[in-house]
């Protein structure tokens, strides 16, 4: 065998052509054996999900969550409050705030802070969007803006946990893990749940790998974080001094020895291991191909505002998100850490908006042009909102009202849902809890949120805890 023969790069063809294969035991039979040992698990290298059939019509096949980490202000994004602006710098009425939980503003004198920006109506739908987001505004007729979000957690760490897992108890699976567990993966070459991160100049807050943890679900469902430095995926690159063809030979030799082992040990894990080395080697090729943007046109790069492809910017990550969506990745989550504006909210919001506005809009536009928006659900929003009261030159954390938007994947386009009171302090109309949001997203993916569960410590654990109601009115 010529080790440098490029045809040997195809794993399966090697197995069939190899002089000694697996000592007569072909991979397919190994896989069959693994299936027989655990029929519920399906082919070990291609998980099809525990849900044999959808509970509802499937409107969305994948989710892209653009997480504005830190909690952007709804008053400078999607919730226009003229009364609040009129009250700017005047005492905030106590009737609103009495007895409520505040974060850093505890015990402070509360003054109203009006939006520092203006809002215009956009598109045929006339959705009011802040002037900071001109590109997203152009997509208004594709958006469903929810202005009546509420959460239960007022600090970043626990609020992220709640937004991702529906619980603050550690070990609860993240939304992306649930989707993989329930629906399986559409790609054999890439992980089904991928996380990308970027950061802005102002208002950074830490995030945790816990947010994409599979928790009590098997760890194969955990989110895989793509790194902005070094290898995109940990350990995806060959060791120095090992070229792709020698790595190929090493993998083949491991497979061969594992095949010999399988001949005498009736252990289904061996077949799975063989399949995972197969997948790993595929990833070694598919990940570099994925992160190489050279087949993207300049027009596309400009649409997103990508300056340097693969530079770890939000723009580059949005383009990567589209490439992941094209390849069938189930859940793609982008964190942009830039929105915790306790102070300098004007500088912070302007900078954050300048960074995310164009790429966010470009992603919607690009997906639409490629016919992918109809079955890709986009969620844009933070882990909580911000107070209508000022905190120095900024705003504090706020859980009683905040805004997010969704687009694509079975969402009714060009509408708003819910409303806050006249000062934006509290969501008062069609309140949407985090559990409701999750239930709605699952419903669009064809899942009854009551029925995607796993047994843990005797409980049927689910993403929506013991609550949640899908918002039918925003589903197309």
């Amino acid at each position, binding site marked *: 065998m010529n080790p440098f023969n490029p045809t040997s790069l195809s794993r399966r063809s090697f197995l069939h052509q190899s002089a000694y294969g697996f000592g007569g035991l072909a991979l397919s039979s190994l896989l069959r054996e693994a299936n027989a040992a655990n029929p519920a698990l399906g082919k070990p290298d291609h998980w099809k999900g525990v849900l044999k059939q959808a509970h509802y019509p499937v409107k969305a096949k994948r989710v892209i969550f653009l997480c504005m980490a830190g909690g952007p202000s709804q008053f400078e994004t999607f919730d226009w409050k003229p009364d609040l602006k009129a009250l700017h710098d005047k005492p905030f009425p106590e009737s609103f705030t009495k007895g409520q939980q505040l974060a850093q503003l505890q015990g402070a004198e509360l003054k109203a802070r009006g939006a520092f920006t203006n809002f215009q109506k956009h598109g045929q739908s006339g959705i009011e969007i802040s002037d900071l987001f001109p590109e997203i505004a152009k997509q208004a007729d594709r958006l469903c803006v929810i202005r009546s979000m509420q959460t239960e957690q007022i600090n970043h760490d626990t609020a992220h946990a709640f937004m991702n897992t529906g619980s603050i108890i550690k070990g609860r699976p993240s939304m992306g893990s649930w989707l993989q567990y329930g629906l399986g993966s559409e790609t054999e070459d890439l992980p089904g749940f991928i996380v990308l991160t970027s950061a802005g100049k102002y208002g950074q807050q830490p995030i945790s790998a816990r947010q994409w943890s599979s928790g009590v679900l098997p760890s194969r469902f955990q989110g895989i974080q793509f790194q902005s430095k070094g290898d995109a995926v940990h350990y995806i690159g060959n060791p120095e001094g*090992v070229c792709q063809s020698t790595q190929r030979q090493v993998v083949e030799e491991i497979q061969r020895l594992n095949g010999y082992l399988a001949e005498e040990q009736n252990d289904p894990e061996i077949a799975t291991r063989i399949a995972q080395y197969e997948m790993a080697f595929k990833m070694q090729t598919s990940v570099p191909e994925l992160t190489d943007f050279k087949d993207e046109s300049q027009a596309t790069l400009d649409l997103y505002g990508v300056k340097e492809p693969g530079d770890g910017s939000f723009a580059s990550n949005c383009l990567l998100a589209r490439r992941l969506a094209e390849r069938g990745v189930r859940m793609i989550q982008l964190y942009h850490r830039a929105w915790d504006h306790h102070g300098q909210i004007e500088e912070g919001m302007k900078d954050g908006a300048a960074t995310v506005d164009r790429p966010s809009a470009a992603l919607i536009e690009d997906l639409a042009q490629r016919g992918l928006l109809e079955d890709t659900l986009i969620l844009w929003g933070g882990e909580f909102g911000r107070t209508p009261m000022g905190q120095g030159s900024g705003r504090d954390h706020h859980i009683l009202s905040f805004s997010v938007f969704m687009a694509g994947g079975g969402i009714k386009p060009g509408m708003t849902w819910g409303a806050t009171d006249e000062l934006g302090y509290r969501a008062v109309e069609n309140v949407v809890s985090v559990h409701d949001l999750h239930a709605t997203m699952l419903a669009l993916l064809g899942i009854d949120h009551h029925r995607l569960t796993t047994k843990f410590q005797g409980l049927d654990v689910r993403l929506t805890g013991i609550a949640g109601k899908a918002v039918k009115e925003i589903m197309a």
Partner: protein
Amino acid sequence: MKAALTLSAGLSLSALTPGFTAEKISFNRDIRPIMSDTCFHCHGFDAKTREAGLRLDIREEAIKETEEGALPIVPGDPGKSEIIFRIFDESDPMPPEKAHKPFTPEQKELFRRWVEEGAVYEPHWAYAPLLRPELPAGKESLNPIDAFIREKLAQKKVSPSPEAAPQALARRLSLDLTGLPPHAHEFYKPEMATGDFIDALLASPHFGERFAVWWLDIARYADTVGFHGDQNQRIFPYRDYVIEAFNTNKRFDDFTREQLAGDLLPKPTPEQLTATGYNRLNMMTREGGAQPKEYLAKYGAERVRSVAAAWFGSTFGCAECHDHKFDPIKASDFYELQSFFADVKQWGVYSSYGYSPEPELEGFNNEFPFPPEIEVESPWLKKQHGQVRKSLDEHLAASLAKLAADPKTVAAQSAWEEKMRAYLGKNPDGGISPALVTHEIQKNGKPLPERKAVLDPSGTIQPDKALGKGESLSLTMDPAGLPALAAIKLQIDVSGIAPESLKARLGKSLSPTFSIRQPDGKIRKLPILTADATAKRPLYRGGAEVPGIQGEWRLPKTLPTDSPLHSIWIVDGPVALSTGEQVVISITGDNTLPLHIALSPFGSLDALKTGSEISSLMTIAADRNPDQIREVAELYFFSVAPDRPAWTKAHQLAGQIRELNEGRAWTLVTEAAPNPLTVRVLPRGNWQDETGPVVLPSTPSFLPGRIESTAEKRLTRLDLANWIVSDANPITARAVMNRLWAQFFGTGLSAVVDDLGSQGELPSHPELLDWLAFEFRESGWDMKRMIRLIVTSETYRQSSHLRPELKDLDPANRLLASQNPRRLDAEFVRDNALSIAGLLKLEDIGGPSVKPYQPAGYYEALQFPNRDYVADTDSRQWRRGVYTHWQRTFLHPMMANFDAPARDECAAARTMSNTPQQALTLLNDPAFVEAARVFAARLLNEKAKDDQARLALAFRLTVNREPKPKETEALTLFLTNQRESYKATPKDATKLLATGLAPKAELDPVEHAAWTQVARVLLNTHETITRY
């Protein structure tokens, strides 16, 4: 916590259930699991969700007529029983359709038969009193484990498997008992008796390292606090306590008491206090805006979940908000258990924020530790301290001997001594306080004429008022008469300051910089090598105190009682002073206390020792004894630095010694607060709702032998610990033995090891579990005894070849007709590879956590403070996995990829996944590539007649067996190809061999690279990472 996929758990018991055989229905085995899953939600413990007034968990209730006049169960008469009617009623079935849990025909039939047989209830097995079961008749002479396992096998007409081959068994024992392959142990001889090998393994210090991994998951041990900024916490001595406890076979009852209540024991030892770190291993926060009360509620709730999981194998989590749906755990049980820990001193938010001032945490920033802590001795640090101390002594002796051997330096030293004697004649203190040429306040380097530097006749200097931003106290001195400058002393002079005024003025800080103004006006900076003070406020970085002073002297809030308040600044290389040169000192900071400044030509290793004894030492000119000769030579060495590299190295070693802190380390402990927090039942777990009743410590109401606090006597953590290990409590011994079993067979006797409640699983062998639990307690909670009992059983020693003929009867091998293969835990995947390579450092036990290679930028999303992971560059790089730095929010990728839990909460069971990430780790993680390189060198350095002999050796080291001919054949061909390949690209060979910090081998690069590839293959095989 991780649970096995329910799918397999559902299949697992099929061999053990009766199906349609004639065997009598057992409530616990057959009915309770179905009821628990489908009925109890509406007809169970929780009165709030109970429907139709029907309760099925208690027999008396279930046979009573309901409000609607129906008879739910008529024992012996399914035809008259309403529940049987409804179960079979297709038009309106129970469970209702909306529950999506329809009964199968088999389940319906089970219920019918159970009612027909009299609807006999049984108490839940895990809560029933613990008695020693009889051994099966005729099997009394067997190891009791074998007696129970064989009994059930015989019932199913299945024969056990033969014993594993000796080499395979040795590998299994070694990996199971120490997490290391057999060849890691010097005492291992292939021909030795199994019993002797077991004894040696149990006595090995690596036994404790292996079982600590098990307990540390349960104790949720980690090096960081977990929430938000995930800052470092100091607690590795607790980890070492656990290792030591397993190694010394500490009784499990003592182990329990010490962790939960070591501080409440009479005259607690440092070890017992270290153990109480257990109570402090909950996640903590320092996030701005977090409310202390909210987080104390979170911490309290987590502690209940973790304690209940660790000692009861129970799931208390749901009872935080409401009575448990499936188990008789009430919300009051949850909060009563929590209130045992209400005295654990802790802050909800570890900072003093404006909205919630905490006087004890004043000044705390993100670099600060998480008190209460105590300082304890760490044997590992102590040894390091001794070793570096020795290196320093040797270095000094060698350096001085070198100087003494050189006539030139001897002459120079004599001249220096003479000069110094003259100097000391005028300046007996060793230092001089030169006259000030100028003294002024400057702003950004420019004089500020409206401000004044006040010079006191006594020679002290101070600013007229606290210096502002950019302002400095600038002094120029004429050091006439000072031959050289090696150290500077800044002393605070408090004489004449009224105590009240002093109190207000202490606790500030000052930062000096030093330079020399040459006669031509040019300025030469005087860098400082090291500085220290007789007293200072500590400076923390990453949660640990930085020794000495780093630029800023943070004055203490109170004066030291045993010495004046001064700091010494050692110049980085003593400088000779020429005529006309001036010393310039510029001081910033908010200190306003008067300063006395002295310059000294004498240097020393220990900054604070400079000065006083020097005079007397130097006055002895003749007839010095050897000690005095050495001391003077040393003084010369440090004051003049005649050998500058040696001088620098001495200071570096001294710096290491200071960091080793006399071999002592801080560790989080439990300190009992005098006033325990008030604990209430929180309705729906809402910490802001204060309407619930206040509760006092009491043991769970559903377990036997409950003890309760009274108005007069509040129970303590020690009472709880004593109750847990008392004969009254049946569940702890069961929970611990069930988890221990899983360590040796892959699955617990009750498969759901983290839930022994009714949603868990009836044990496959209930009598065996009870026998083990009873024996464990009766033997004096003797862990090693129980482990020995397991590993000496024939059941354990069976071959691990799963048997295809049993696939239908027993698909999950719960009957244990053979052993189960088991992938190694993350830590041991690493240890095994490094040990095979000969790279693992096994000499010492314990010590601060270590940092193996980690992909760059992995901590990028961590903040407060920003984190830069710096991998260890010395032998710590190759320590065991148990010592790996445990960052909760971003666990080391290798560990995470192999299913190590983040340890945010108690993790009683790890998942065993099999993923592409594992393949990528073993293939490409530099730690494993380096191991392959070193393993290859190890093979090449062995005497072997040919490649085949070397391959055979490689197989013995990796999987402790001889290779099969086809393996040898395949690898020989592979080796040949690799040789050819690297011969063609020798540069690639060099690159591959450059992986990792381990010393490079003196070998032919092509040959070494080719064998490295062979080693990579062997370290990647499924067999290598699996214990068969």
